């Protein structure tokens, strides 16, 4: 198989189209695996609490990034939270986007957590999203143990 070099405009130079395409298998780690397993098996979102600064982190991790001490206190979080910020992506990038644009992303502070969780927003009018909106996690029917086991967060109707 050959690569067809292309002219770069009228510069007299060539472009050589190629790619770096490689499969990866990232290890999630013990803490992350438990986080995903709970979502997968029980549809529950857990955070982890630092005994020193008392922040509850989600996604959970082994070491508190702020205090650099180990964390072991798991905290079950609500599946509902408040939208801190959002955007609607209106351009297409082949290969990396989970949905056809336009699609909405937000950072959600789940009740009980100190940090925000970045995720998709669904069942929502893309022209009527606002900071402070209450949203709730919608889980996928078939879950694989990854970030998209949460399908998206949808607005909670008062």
């Amino acid at each position, binding site marked *: 198989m050959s690569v067809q070099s292309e002219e770069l405009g009228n510069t007299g130079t060539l472009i050589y189209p190629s790619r770096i395409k490689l499969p990866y298998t990232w290890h999630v780690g013990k803490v992350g695996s438990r986080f995903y397993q709970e979502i997968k098996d029980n549809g529950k979102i857990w955070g982890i609490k630092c005994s020193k600064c008392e922040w509850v982190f989600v996604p959970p991790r082994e070491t508190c990034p702020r205090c650099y001490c180990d964390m072991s206190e798991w905290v079950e979080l609500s599946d509902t939270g408040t939208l*801190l910020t959002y955007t609607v992506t209106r351009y297409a990038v082949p290969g990396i986007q*989970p949905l056809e644009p336009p699609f909405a992303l937000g950072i959600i502070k789940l009740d009980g957590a100190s940090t925000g969780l*970045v995720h998709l927003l669904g069942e929502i009018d893309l022209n009527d999203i606002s900071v402070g909106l209450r949203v709730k996690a919608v889980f996928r029917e078939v879950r694989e143990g990854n970030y998209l086991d949460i399908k998206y967060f949808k607005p909670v109707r008062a």
Partner: protein
Amino acid sequence: MEKVGIIGVAQTKYQRYNPASHAESAYEVTSKSLEDAGLTIDDIDNTITVCNDFWDGRTISSMTITEATGSHKSPTTNVEGDGTYGALMGLMRLLSGLHEITLVVAQSKISEGIPSVITNAIFDPIYERMLGLDAINSAALQMRSYMSKYGVTEEQCAKVSVKNHKNAKANPYAHLAMDITVEDVLKSRVLADPIKLLDTSPISDGACAIIMARERTAKRKHGKPIWIKGVGHCADAYHLGDRDLAEVDALASAAKRAYKMAGIRSPLKQVHVAEVYDAFSYMELMWMEGLGLCGRGKAGAMVDSGLTEMGGALPINPSGGVLSAHAVQVAGLARIAETVLQLRGEAGDRQVDGASTALAHGIEGACGQGHCVFILGK
């Protein structure tokens, strides 16, 4: 800190699709910076290259420019990050007393790859990466967060874009120099609201080099060394959700360190010109706050006042900034090169009169997670 002077600078013209290869543009700025400093490659006793394996599409990407920068001829470090970090590494080599003259070269050809694919790889592969995050929509989350917390408006952000693209008209190296209006920005295509096309920086190829020397050598080799007065760098938390995206703690910390070293207590008064990493229009406002040029949330009003325009009390990005030329990795080093030209009084039509202290700033990662601040002076 022992005195280290910048005695040579060079940039390519920034443009989409520079026909020169990585090595060819690296050689262009290497030889021009040597010329500017009145040196030959044999005078250089160590070299810092700035490369990134993702943007360059190559593992050990520094190999691409090793020979073109002459870095095979002297001790070398390859920094992967913004060019300001490369300059910092070079500064440290000189301050160690083990080297006399450092060449720092950054180059990039952003038009080779797909920026959103490359910036998607910034995000944690086991978590947020699957959401399709990239530099643009993550910045949109930050811009919204900033606007919503402090009441800064899209118009105020747009004014930055108008100012910088206009400034770029006086910069022969700039990629996108143009007269636009606030309305043009507001009406430009929405990419990821609230970010619109004219809030973003272009995809630019380009290179920049600077040459630094220890005090005695700098004075001997060059009539007008520009001295490095202070430097600081700092990183914020990684996960976007761990940060209050409207805040600028890491920048404030980096700036504090740099100011302390440079003896700057009131940056707004003591700094005469600043080149900051405005990858998006709103960033210039946030970085003004992080740099302590105004209170939190007050940058919008400061831009309204015209203070940061050419002729204002503290012109920001007379070069047109990153909004007018965004060669990633290079852009921070270009900020340093531009401030050197300002302090030498060689900035041509973009010269800020009487500038004797300047600030150059680079960022690293998503939404300005990392910052590096340089203070330079005559």
